[in-house]
């Protein structure tokens, strides 16, 4: 019993108390991190449903629904805008486009009778596609046609800081309806919702967001203002992505992307297979509901494409050619239309046709490229 007697003596207790007091001196810093993360909350982890309708994103969505043009000035959560757009639409569009920012030009061709809604989201992953479709299902009807951008990045796990809590919940609901268990799926770190409150990377993102928006109106309604390079949900050009970046930067980002993505150094065949299975089930689910699907591939910047080929030869893990081949097989399997290619040479595209490693300049959209993007 002696051995099992209480281990902390009174002097030790005193030392522990002293330590605790000193540790408490760092509490203001911890509180600062938690407070900023909670208050700025750039991806909406802690926003309650009630106050979402006071948000900038809600107001922007309302302006867009009212048919106005909006110039976005500060960083906003584009997922929330899309959520409100879907909620607020009086009619379901005929065609929706799902993809990352690389899909933003799709549907931007000459006006047609088809009602198009481009749901391109920054850094979209497969789970974002599911989130959008789930929101349409909640609304009661799916669009007749969908364009799915198939990109390497869509097989990332759902833990990037660009993702949104509501989308995750919506994606989970759709997964359940599709009969897929979320167990083991890379749903990501957002499941650790409250751990995130002290996340320093989230804090840095919050500070950046706060700094960008400080003292500025989040957006403005414009009349004849056409910013050259970016399209928004209704297919109008709204945001300029900025200057042309150097080849060195493109290469760095390409390699960084490779290393941090699921195809990277910690390449997981299991994860990729899992997500491909989810994608196939997703397509099957939509086909069962008579949705006409088109798979779309958008060319990469020649430097980035070459970097992908170098990675393929050198490490053999991520293979851009295999992915393109997979898309063709997928189209064949489900009898879908497939348009585009990752290879810029197919369309005769050069460095100057791109804004950065992944995004085409609108001025560079020659006839073959237009074939990909117009419907």
């Amino acid at each position, binding site marked *: 019993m002696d*051995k*099992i*007697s*209480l*281990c*902390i*003596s009174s002097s*030790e*207790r005193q*030392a*522990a108390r*002293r*330590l605790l007091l*000193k540790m408490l*001196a*760092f509490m203001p*810093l911890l509180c600062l*991190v938690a407070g900023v993360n909670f208050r700025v909350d750039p991806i909406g982890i802690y926003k309650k449903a009630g106050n979402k309708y006071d948000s900038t994103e809600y107001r922007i969505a309302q302006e867009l629904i009212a048919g106005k043009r909006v110039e976005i000035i500060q960083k906003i959560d584009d997922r929330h805008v899309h959520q409100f757009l879907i909620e607020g639409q009086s009619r379901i569009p005929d065609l929706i486009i799902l993809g990352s920012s690389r899909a933003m030009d799709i549907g931007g061709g000459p006006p047609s009778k088809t009602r198009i809604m481009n749901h391109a989201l920054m850094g979209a992953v497969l789970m974002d596609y599911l989130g959008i479709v789930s929101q349409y299902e909640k609304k009661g009807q799916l669009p007749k046609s969908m364009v799915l951008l198939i990109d390497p990045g869509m097989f990332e796990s759902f833990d990037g800081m660009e993702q949104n809590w509501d989308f995750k919940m919506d994606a989970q609901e759709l997964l359940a309806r599709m009969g897929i268990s979320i167990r083991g799926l890379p749903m990501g770190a957002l499941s*650790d919702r409250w*751990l*995130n409150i*002290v*996340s*320093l*990377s989230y*804090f*840095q993102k919050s*500070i950046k967001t706060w700094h960008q928006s400080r003292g500025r109106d989040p957006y403005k309604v414009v009349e004849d203002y056409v910013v050259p390079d970016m399209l928004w949900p209704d297919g109008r050009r709204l945001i300029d992505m900025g200057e042309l*970046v*150097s*080849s*060195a*930067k*493109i*290469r*760095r*980002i390409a*390699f*960084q992307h*490779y*290393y*941090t993505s699921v195809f990277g150094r910690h390449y997981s065949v299991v994860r990729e297979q899992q997500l491909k299975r989810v994608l196939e089930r997703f397509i099957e689910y939509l086909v069962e509901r008579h949705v006409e699907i088109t798979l779309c591939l958008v060319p990469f910047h020649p430097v980035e494409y070459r*970097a992908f080929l*170098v*990675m393929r030869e*050198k490490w053999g893990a991520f293979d851009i050619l295999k992915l393109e081949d997979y898309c063709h097989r997928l189209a064949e399997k489900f009898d879908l239309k497939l348009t585009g290619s990752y290879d810029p040479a197919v369309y005769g595209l050069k460095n100057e046709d791109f804004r950065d490693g992944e995004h085409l300049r609108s001025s560079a959209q020659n006839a073959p490229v237009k074939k990909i993007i117009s419907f």
Partner: protein
Amino acid sequence: MLFNSVPFIFFFPLVTILFFVVPQPYRWFLLLMASCIFYTWFIPVYLVVLFVLILIDYWMGIWIEDSMLKGVDARKYLIVSIVSMCSILFFFKYFDFFGANLSSIAGFFGLNYPPKVLGLIIPIGLSFHTFQSLSYVIEVYKGRQKAERHFGIYALYVMFYPQLVAGPIERPYNLLPQFREKQSVDYQRISDGLKLMAWGMFKKVVIADRLAVLVDQVFRDVGSYHGPEFVVALFFFAFQLYCDFSGYCDIAVGSAKVMGFKLMDNFRYPYFSRSVRKFWRCWHISLFSWLRDYVFIPLCRHRYFKHFRRVNIFLMFLISGVWHGAGWTYVAWGALTGFYVVLDAATEDFRKNMRRIVGIKEENFFLKAWQVSATFLLFCFSAIFFRAETMQDSWFILRQLPAGWPQGSFNVSDFCYARFGLDVTWFSISINLVIVLVFIDLLQRGTSGRPVFSNDPVWVRWSYYYGLVLGMIFLGHYGQNQFVYFQF
């Protein structure tokens, strides 16, 4: 679990508090469970590999001791242990490399032998566990360590979570007795441990991970760069590697210290070393002292090898290269490092005599500066092989080193952006951080291991602590970057 991850922020205080609350006889169990949780955070199934390794050496240790007590030759158990450890290591780490080379050799002779690739992910820290485990069996065999008969405590010796995945590679006579001692709540010790952890974390997340951005960019795609970019990348890599590994070790030693365990220091300010030999006595001390004790000294005592002291030194460094990874780059790195050390030893007297003749005193500042710089440059040069992904990349870098240097006027900002795609702010922050590191190491070198500001007024100390934490909050890179040495 990574030291630089959110779960560890909760894991560490919880385990520490429980450690002091739980009665001494049960603390080993708590630490063992905590270590299992810590390890399963990576790839849970590899816990089985670790347990197989522990079981083998646990029984070998006991059988060796029993045999020695009975006066029977225990060598067979030692051989079984060494062969088992090396086999496990070979299977996970070297099988694919060996198979690929065998296939190349067969191809050279016109034979068709397709390479067998297992494609296994190496269990995290396997090389560290095997060496730590081997050191126990060898010490028992040498009679310097009693066999540990408590399985839990032996398992804890291999699995103790602060040093589980990347060392320091502890010796049984240092660590095992500490698990039986009662650790108390000592204010000064805990405080020092926490400060060491904070400094280690700063080195990792603020300096190493920041420098890694450029270093990784260059070494992943060497074909796109030339001499100046390689020089910048090698300079940054030297500091990235140091901050990454010594940062990890500081967190490991600090977290063990908080609980009352003393782990060996793995780094002793290597970049201030005045010769290559001194450098390797200050860098990854636990590995190189292991190799010295269990490879170099036995070789020097061996009847065939004892006349070839310098060959033995070379062999020791060659083994250290192979230990680091299965690749010809590591072999080349080990060989080059061994060559440096042998050359250093061989020319030491000559250089001393030359200095005496010329009249340069050993304590001359310029001599010291030259020696420190030369040692650093030699290390940077050898790092080409250590960091390059393939031998082809290494040769390419060597060939390209003289190429691509700017002619005439030179704009740093343009250089940063055009060559690396990084802005000049990134560079200036990185350079300043390296200067801060060197400055703090320089100050710290004169102390006896306690933090450099320990005796300063309270406001100076707290400014330092707050600066450190604020630096981590605002300048840290938080992408869950693994520690470089985890791969070994």
